[in-house]
């Protein structure tokens, strides 16, 4: 017993006090900055880069850094607040910086804020996810990030949830279960796409075994880019969306 107490005291408190202003290490590849009006599109194995105008689609990008290593046209900053309520805003063009992006990326919905601002319970559905995003979402609830302090938690049943968090490119075999889960979630509800796979199919976008009907059928409330999504990206996206 004494050992247990000693260990507990030795560990102390390890939570990140100010989640909103936490910094990530310099090497982290976050918001991309484009410094040229043309980029070699073929560099990107994901097709996230396009020209006319030169752009990087954060909804497709896995932040692998391949473009930054091979050209001078793209540079990654360690800015991690990458989420947006609009799919189009994830496309970053030349000259955009992280501050401009962040200012308009997330539109707070007043009604959502009123209903879910103090408590948001989510149901996570991995629809072909590789376990990368899933592990990072689990990390959101660990003692470092401690998402629960804001009243945001993952629920065991969609019937107890206010929204869905989807990871993975939505495999054919999971399409029915995902739709079922959506139907089981009571209204009003929100749908959050987490990670490059969920937003665009990511590296699996050309697979024959996907069924992404769900995405076109339902309203998507929040897009959170990453591969996998960093816990700080995820938590801050929700805080901004709820206007906390």
């Amino acid at each position, binding site marked *: 017993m004494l050992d247990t107490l000693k260990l507990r005291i*030795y560990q102390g408190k390890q939570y990140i006090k100010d989640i909103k202003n936490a910094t990530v290490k310099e090497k982290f590849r976050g918001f991309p900055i484009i410094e040229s009006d043309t980029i070699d599109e073929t560099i990107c194995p994901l097709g996230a880069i396009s020209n006319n105008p030169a752009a990087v689609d954060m909804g497709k990008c896995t932040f692998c850094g391949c473009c930054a290593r091979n050209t001078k046209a793209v540079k990654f900053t360690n800015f991690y607040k990458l989420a947006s309520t609009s799919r189009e805003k994830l496309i970053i063009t030349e000259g955009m910086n992280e501050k401009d992006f962040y200012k308009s990326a997330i539109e707070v919905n007043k009604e959502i804020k009123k209903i879910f601002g103090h408590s948001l319970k989510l149901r996570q559905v991995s629809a072909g996810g590789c376990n990368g995003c899933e592990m990072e979402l689990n990390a959101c609830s660990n003692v470092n990030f401690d998402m629960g302090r804001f009243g945001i938690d993952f629920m065991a049943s969609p019937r107890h949830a206010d929204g869905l968090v989807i990871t993975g490119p939505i495999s054919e075999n999971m399409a029915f279960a995902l739709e079922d889960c959506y139907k089981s979630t009571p209204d009003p509800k929100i749908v959050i796409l987490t990670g490059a796979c969920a937003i665009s199919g990511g590296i699996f976008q*050309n697979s024959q075994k996907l069924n992404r009907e769900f995405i076109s059928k339902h309203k998507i409330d929040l897009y959170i880019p990453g591969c996998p999504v960093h816990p700080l990206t995820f938590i801050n996206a929700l805080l901004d969306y709820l206007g906390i």
Partner: protein
Amino acid sequence: MNWLINDNNKCESIFDIPVLSINDLRQEIIQMKKRVVGFFGKQENDNVHLFVVLADDSEGKLYVSSAIFPPEIKEYESLTQELPSFHMFEREFYEEFNIKPLNHPWLKSVRNHKNKYEFFEMKGDEIHQVAVGPIHAGVIEPGHFRFMCCGEKIYELEIQLGWQSKGVEQLFLTSHSNRLAESVCGDSVVAYNIAYSNLVESLSGCEITNKAQLIRLIALEMERCAIHIGDLGAIAGDIAYLMGASIFGATRTLVINTMLEISGSRFARGLIETGGVNYDIDLALSDKIVSVLDKVSNDVERTVKTMLKSPTVASRLEKTGIVSKETAIEMGFTGMTARASGVNLDTRFDYPDKWYKDIENRSTKADGDVYSRTRLRYKEIKQSIYIIKKFLKELEKYSTEPLRVHCPNKMKPDSFVVSMTEGWRGEVVHIAITDTNGKFSRYKIKDASFNNWYALALAVRNNGISDFPLCNKSFNLSYCGNDL
């Protein structure tokens, strides 16, 4: 010779692989009494070419042979009757090529459950079914579990997977890249990427520098270390030992944040590229890694000792979810699952490269229960930290070497390579065959989970259903590694 004897990561001509009749091949496989690591088909015009890779782990050699099924032959006598470890491989082969292994005891599909499937059912007044999934209560990947219970006791568990199936092997044929390799199984990013890179480098005759090799292996061991710590936390959480769950969770953060300092990603995505690695570990970073690992080692040791001393913890872990050594050998379980049952399989030491050759690998006492799997993880965390420190020291000698060398785009035509890497779960096997143009004509991936899922089904028999999450976490098998 009926077998081609090959090494790990060694490129051989496809024409050197013997082609036998299926009956002869079957007899050969039964006589060889070796462990199966590959059993897969390849469509060649109208014929189906079946390749078999067996492993001799004591001498570190791979045995390859094959058989051709002309279109009129649609069945053969199954191997599973004689060698149960083939059961998943034959099911997969049947599903993909519709060639039926006769008298297979359980010829159920692996990934595509198109038709209505009747689960195994027990009948009786006291018997009830529990269906779980595909969407689970926690934040994990999907899979379906069907329990046959009598009261609280599990009599039988049937595991139905395939929900994650994304056609990964097909994607490797059309557009393979390091990015695809590291996305197959997101908790084994480094292991998968090393297996793929070694394979491509072997096919294109590219020799990477010592420095790049060491950085890859450091990342591999850090991945092992991070996941094992995280899983110790999950095991602690499942027995409501919440202090353990919290401390291991925070300790894992230290390790993966160090990975971020090396590669810019907490899971080392973007670190490994064919031809070498993208990021260096300089002296300052090396010192930092050592100091973090010292703290991690100390914290893990202290927490594990405190945890395992607690009688309530021991009572939940000991004699729960047992997989015997005999079962593990017979069913062909690999990696951590096998080691926890006393079967010493570890690709790092069975097929050693020049770095692992001198590292001593002591086996520990293993009873095949959750306690053994917990102890094994603890042992492997300590071992990985020791290896990382050793490799970091080694790395200093090669500081002037380049990180990456040019890897020719062209791969050898008509070749065959088996690439095995020991991920934290066990062997990650990538097998490739190239066509006359030097393009992949078949890419086969086998995760340790493909063998080991059945270990979970056997482990939970006669255990309370409340111990299922604990048993499951003690293995922590991969869904997408199985479903591909």
